[in-house]
């Protein structure tokens, strides 16, 4: 962390020196910001759909603010490192970060983290993940009712590569008075393969992970575990439509460290809103089956904050919450 602060300070100093040159080409924006390129910290690896979205947004933002916008993957600590780096970065508007639920909702409850909600200023959201319950094609369980009936008589397991995917299963279990056993997987394909091979009963993942196998008749989509039905399988109902108040909600958006000058912040918000409405990005998202969903800074904050009670309840129930 020491090193990164040093970098940021050095960078700011250099920016001061170079400001005249960098903004010279664009006199209309010759005020303080942006004098150099903006970095988006992404706490997941290249290849995930969140990373693809961040890169798409960066492309639109580059055009919008007239300065380079680059994506920097900061991995490690299950995404904690990226979050901590964002919180510790200088609030000058040159460092923003992709925010998902884990960093703000899960980690602070279970361990000491070097940031709080107040460390960040939210800039707006661009998308929301779809989740679905996948089950091996050959399984005798055909409906959610079958599933609940099975869970009353035996141990029913589900795999997922992140706890947030499984929120719907925990809520479903609570609503129906049964328990589903979570088996954490390290990667998305591992979670899927275990369900197809019958090693676990179910899998909770996003469409990019499940679609190839659903199309290949190895998996069935039992229900959508999100608020909406999947656009590519409109006949499969959501858990809510089936009468269970259960949904995994993971909004994707951006935040910067608290204390960024209002002028820079306004421009960032504007650029992100523009990206959220970009047709090309929306098309890319549709191909990845991610729900494009433009959210203002306040809406995005609310979307995450409203999850807090649910997640906390789950963590308490799982006796994972730090004391």
């Amino acid at each position: 962390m020491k090193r990164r602060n040093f970098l940021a300070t050095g960078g700011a100093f250099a920016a001061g020196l170079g400001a005249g040159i960098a903004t010279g080409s664009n006199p209309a924006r010759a005020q303080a910001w942006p004098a150099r390129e903006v970095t988006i910290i992404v706490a997941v690896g290249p290849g995930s759909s969140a990373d693809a979205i961040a890169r798409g947004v960066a492309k639109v933002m580059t055009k919008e603010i007239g300065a380079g916008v680059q994506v920097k993957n900061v991995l490690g600590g299950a995404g904690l490192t990226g979050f901590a780096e964002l919180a510790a970065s200088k609030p000058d508007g040159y460092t923003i970060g992709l925010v998902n639920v884990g960093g703000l909702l899960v980690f602070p409850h279970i361990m000491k983290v070097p940031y709080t909600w107040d460390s960040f200023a939210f800039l707006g959201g661009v998308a929301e993940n779809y989740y679905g319950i996948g089950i091996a094609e050959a399984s005798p369980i055909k409906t959610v009712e079958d599933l609940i009936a099975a869970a009353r008589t035996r141990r029913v397991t589900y795999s997922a590569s992140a706890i947030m995917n499984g929120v719907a299963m925990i809520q479903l279990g609570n609503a129906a008075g049964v328990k589903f056993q979570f088996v954490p997987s390290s990667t998305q394909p591992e979670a899927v393969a275990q369900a197809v091979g019958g090693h676990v009963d179910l899998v909770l993942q996003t469409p990019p992970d499940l679609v190839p196998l659903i199309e290949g008749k190895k998996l069935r989509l039992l229900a959508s575990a999100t608020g909406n039905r999947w656009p590519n399988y409109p006949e499969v109902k959501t858990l809510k439509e089936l009468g269970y108040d259960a949904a995994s909600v993971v909004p994707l958006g951006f935040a910067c460290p608290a204390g960024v000058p209002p002028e820079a912040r306004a421009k960032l918000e504007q650029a992100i809103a523009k990206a959220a409405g970009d047709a090309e990005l929306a098309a890319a998202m549709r191909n990845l089956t991610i729900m494009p969903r433009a959210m203002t800074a306040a809406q995005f904050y609310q979307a995450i904050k409203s999850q807090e009670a649910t997640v906390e309840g789950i963590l308490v129930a799982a006796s994972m919450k730090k004391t």
Partner: protein
Amino acid sequence: MENLLLGFSVVVTPANLLYCLIGTFLGTAIGILPGVGPLATIAILMPLTVHMDVTSALIMLCGIYYGVAYGGTATSVLLRIPGEASSVVTCLDGYMMARNGRAGAALTIAAIGSFIAGTIGTIAISYASPPLAKLVFAFGPAQYTALMLAALAAVTYFSGGPLLKVLLMVGFGLTLGCVGADPMTLTLTLTPRLTFGSLDMVGGIDLTALAIGLFGFSEILWMARQPLAKLKLIPPPKTLLGFLPNREEVRRSVMPVARGTVLGFMVGVLPGGGAMLASFLSYAVERKFCRYPEQFGKGAVEGLAGPETANNAGTSGALLPLLCMGLPANAVSALLLTAFMIHGVAPGPAMVERQPEIFWGLIASMYIGNVMLLVLNLPLIGLLVKILEVPRAYLSPLILLLCVIGVYSSGGASAVTVAVAFGFLGYFLRRLDFDLGLLILAYVLGPILERSVRQALTISGGEAKIFVADPLSIGLLVAAAVFLAAGLMPNRKLSLREDA
């Protein structure tokens, strides 16, 4: 056959051939340069391909993917810097071949072996996909546990050193694999393990830092301590075709290449260990089969040909579950899956039926790409071996700086510190004649083993009989037990070899 012809008809257009060439060339370059990984490159190139034709884009990205496995050999052979994790084994005998003046031969054998492995791998994907893909689903947590135990036991048995020293390295590697946040409950509780309270260690020990430290940095120390007279390299032959292997080397490479191809492909199909496990197993097997086991570690051709082939076969093997099932077997093929999806292609059985031109186009491009790689790589070899003629006064700083770039790109400044620490450790372990390869392998397999054990017990609710519930796991466990038992009788093993 008809399908394959369709594929070739898609690929053989000037534009697609050009993209295939660009992809394979980039892949080779990335593989050669440490610090520049395929993951970052594909991620950077992906947005640029959005406007390209779907088939062309995928052909180029896949070209990068398998091109890297070719290029990774060069720095391992020439400088003892593992360019990719799967070329760690190449640092052992490939590098020693270079010290013996056979650098050109080593690189040529590796390139030809890779070509054979890549081509046969592609043939296997074209004709044997469905049964092989089933293998992916047969392996659940219990089966993985058994597989990892069998692999560790096999490598322990084959490695041949004093059993306790071998076990110490395995145990140490497994322990290193535990360092950092607990991977199993990662999304629930971030439990730091064996970190001595350091935040930098929460992310675990970086594989690149470990490999470059143990091999690259330790070699610098090793070389510095050698008497100047002993350091004289046997210069590579000066003739035009001097980089070609001689008849003896070719003869000794044939079987390792054949075995490496089969072994590598089978292991590569399974997610997890992939190309790296393939190369280690191949090295272990070759050491056992070789008629000159005393040459191993001193520049045995078999110790280069087998693992290099297995590594490339493993790379093709890992594409199979992606193309046929939409299940990527490693991080890079996961990135390829995203690229597919961005272009609106969902790989899997449905792709073969609905978009045969894309599936077979890719397969055809892989045949062509492998030929391109060979043509691209052979002339490069003459150029690459020249680096050995650079005097140590200039070569050493160059090696150190390349190592720093590689490690820093992968894990930042704290990773450099880790790599330096492992550089010293590696140097002392080498002086004490410990097997460093085993350490790295155990480090890679350890987390898979741990995760599998814990997942299995979570599924069964703590009952151990899940590990012996089906023939596959029982068979693998028996194999593990046999290897371990055989390893306990080192003296008999030695005398047998002397009789033969």
